[in-house]
């Protein structure tokens, strides 16, 4: 049984690592400025984890193969050389180096996303999440968002954001169902929810953030590839959670200008 276990475990180890290394299932192609650094950090973690995985599983398999008790076996047991000490040292070195590398060196990505504010010239877009759709609001030419409150939301009249339309600052706000942005320009999303916790997840952009009612949470990134990307809700919000999605359209500057003008005319 021990030998069969050793063989099965060895096969499982190699197949698992091979599938990862083949990248047959892997991150989608990066489309944002900070994404490359995140992927690099994953790759570093993966190397460390793969080494630990392979060594531990193969040792276990080797010991199961080699040390089975045979009939009438009187061979003396062997205590691991040096006792526990060297294994403690090994664990400290392995994990310690991972911690230093990943925690302190690797925090650059987290810091860039969350410790530094968005660039001053970011395109600001408000996001309103609610069971089970996303809406987006652009401030318009005045660069300001008009006042809004959930008590004013009236979907039958198309007032998805609950904008106080009597206020002058609200007149030029543009509400859309798709998130259109120009490529290579920083974007700052201001995430709001009207009912439950929701999530905002765009894998290709390497961005994700929970959206919490009662808070406006900023999320900034810079898209670097033109394309149409799915925004998924990634925080369980009710029975329609799996249908809750929108699309991020990254366009050239000219196409974006055309798009925003077109959206403004639809208000």
């Amino acid at each position: 049984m021990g030998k069969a276990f050793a063989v099965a475990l060895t096969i499982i180890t190699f197949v698992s690592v091979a599938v990862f290394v083949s990248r047959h299932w892997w991150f989608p192609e990066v489309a944002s400025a900070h994404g490359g650094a995140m992927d690099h950090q994953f790759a570093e973690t993966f190397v460390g984890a793969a080494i630990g995985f392979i060594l531990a599983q193969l040792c276990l398999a080797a010991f199961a193969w080699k040390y089975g008790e045979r009939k009438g076996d009187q061979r003396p047991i062997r205590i691991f050389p040096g006792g526990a000490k060297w294994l403690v040292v090994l664990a400290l070195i392995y994990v310690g180096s991972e911690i230093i590398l990943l925690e302190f060196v690797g925090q650059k990505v987290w810091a860039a996303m969350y410790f530094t504010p968005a660039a001053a010239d970011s395109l600001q877009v408000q996001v309103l999440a609610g069971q089970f759709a996303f809406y987006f609001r652009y401030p318009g030419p005045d660069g300001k968002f008009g006042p809004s409150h959930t008590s004013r939301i009236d979907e039958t009249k198309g007032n998805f954001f609950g904008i106080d339309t009597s206020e002058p600052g609200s007149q030029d706000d543009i509400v859309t169902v798709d998130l259109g942005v120009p490529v290579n320009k920083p974007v700052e999303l201001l995430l709001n929810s009207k009912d439950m916790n929701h999530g905002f997840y765009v894998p290709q952009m390497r961005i994700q953030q929970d959206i919490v009612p009662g808070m406006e949470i900023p999320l900034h990134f810079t898209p670097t590839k033109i394309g149409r990307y799915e925004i998924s809700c990634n925080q369980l919000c009710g029975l329609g959670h799996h249908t809750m999605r929108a699309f991020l359209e990254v366009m050239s500057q000219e196409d974006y200008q055309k798009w925003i003008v077109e959206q403004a005319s639809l208000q």
Partner: protein
Amino acid sequence: MAHMPTEAQVHQHTAPTGFIRKYIFSVDHKVIGKQYYFLAVFSVFVGMILSWLVRIHLVWPNAHIWGLNALSPAGAPGGVISPEYYLSLLTIHGTLMVFFVLTTAPQAGFGNYALPIQIGAEDMAFPVLNMLSFWVTFLALCALISSLFVGDGPPISGWTAYPPLSAVGRSAGPGQGIGQDLWGISIALFCAGSLLGALNFITTTVDLRCKGMTLMRMPLTCWAWLITAILSLLSFAVLFAACVLLILDRNAGTSFFLPSGLLVNGTLQNHAGGSPLLWQHLFWFFGHPEVYIAIVPGFGVISHVLSVFSRKPILGYKVIVACLLGIGFLSFTVWGHHMFLSGMSPYSGFLFSIPTLIITIPATIISLLWLGTVFGGRLRFTTCMMFALGFVSVFVTGGLGGMFLAQPSLDIFLHGTYFVVGHFHMVMGVAAIFGMFAGTYFWFPKMFGRMLNEGLGKVHFAITFIGVYCIFMPMHFIGLEGMPRRYSSFVNDLMQPLMPVHKFMTIAALITGASQFIFFFNLFWSMYKGPKASENPWESTTLEWTVPSPPPFDNFGGKHPVVYHDPYEYGNVQNGKDYVMQTDPAGQPARSQ
């Protein structure tokens, strides 16, 4: 430090008479341990069926499943699972498995059964309290199961029950009426039962060790149960409070978790001033120690069993004790890693990731010490040993997944994907369950006086070991593709190419699940028809193997055992035996670690 018990340490209860006192309302820790164990067996059976329904729905969403229409005509009309019922099923699956399986059998099941005997005591310190804690837990299970049959079914908010979804009431969706209240009541009762149990474990371990049983001569199982009990004592109270606050928000108009301005289903809610993040902090402050409560007893069992079946002392007994204490302490400092993207301060996120990575150190040390124990041994490949070796493998796999998730930068991508689902199933749904299997195959002879069938056990192990890797390793792959969790179906085109992977996992889950019926059959058949067990079939050194199988009601027949040795004296062959019982006054110790 030896402890000399006085004569009246435990209320001297006479042998119970009558069916009710012997088997139903029993104060005997052995009966209570078995009651918890079978509660867990029932729960894992139901939880497994629910997991099949979940997996089947993901790949065959229009399947008409026999019996579901009768169970819930609204949730599964014609036997076809609706999106909301899918969420209900996975909520109950998670709740049953985490609480009623992983937090009962490893600690209250095996711990209640074996701890008093292993330390040389007649019973737990508070036998009546022990009985009460089981029946409170039983009531909690009844409350949870009843949610399947009342109102519009079980809640859809997941086992994590985040507000506002869980707190605003029925307007948030089906199951969010009475179903969510029953969930809250069930969990609150469960917390109460666990707190009572924790008091018992700690007091028993501190006070009732027999002569010669110093703390450092306790089997590692006893250390694990002690540390787990301390974690329970400190964390369950917080979840209890959270459930009470949730029930109040839902029924008494309070706003602990609900901010103002919530517009749910077109209706503006009256609440104001609360924060959904408060629930998350309270829940995960409990929730992280909880996962260690689920696994630490397994660490104890595996450390114990690897030594027995390698015929070698455990490597680094003192180091393992220190690591268990370290893991216990650190487990209270890491809860924010479940909340990196929750909206809490990103500086907190960074701070939480540091102890999250540091807790890897004691876990790695223990894993290496297990490998070092097996090294150079004379391995006996009993079914128990196979599950112990399997535990080492799957725990390493699951733990390494944690290294990715511990880093907030990577969690930005991986949070809420199947990578997380694969990780926690590997450590909890596989490793902790393997710990339970190892405990079962180890202590069954003592508990029932008969042997489990080893042939069936080996088949059970073989299919299960390969099966769990087939189910849960691919979850890591599709997680890297960004596949979200808790989706009842995949309407988006992005995820359609991954459906073959889901089919593979579903088929693996059905086959692996079916093989558990080999175990269930073996368990129930052997209880009555298995070959009779001797006092010490495994040639093991600890005190439970010095008493008959099964033991008399007071464990030691009125005698007080005396301990002379460490618990892992294996290896040196003397008098034709390669082991020295802890109670043997004459034996020379093997080289101690």
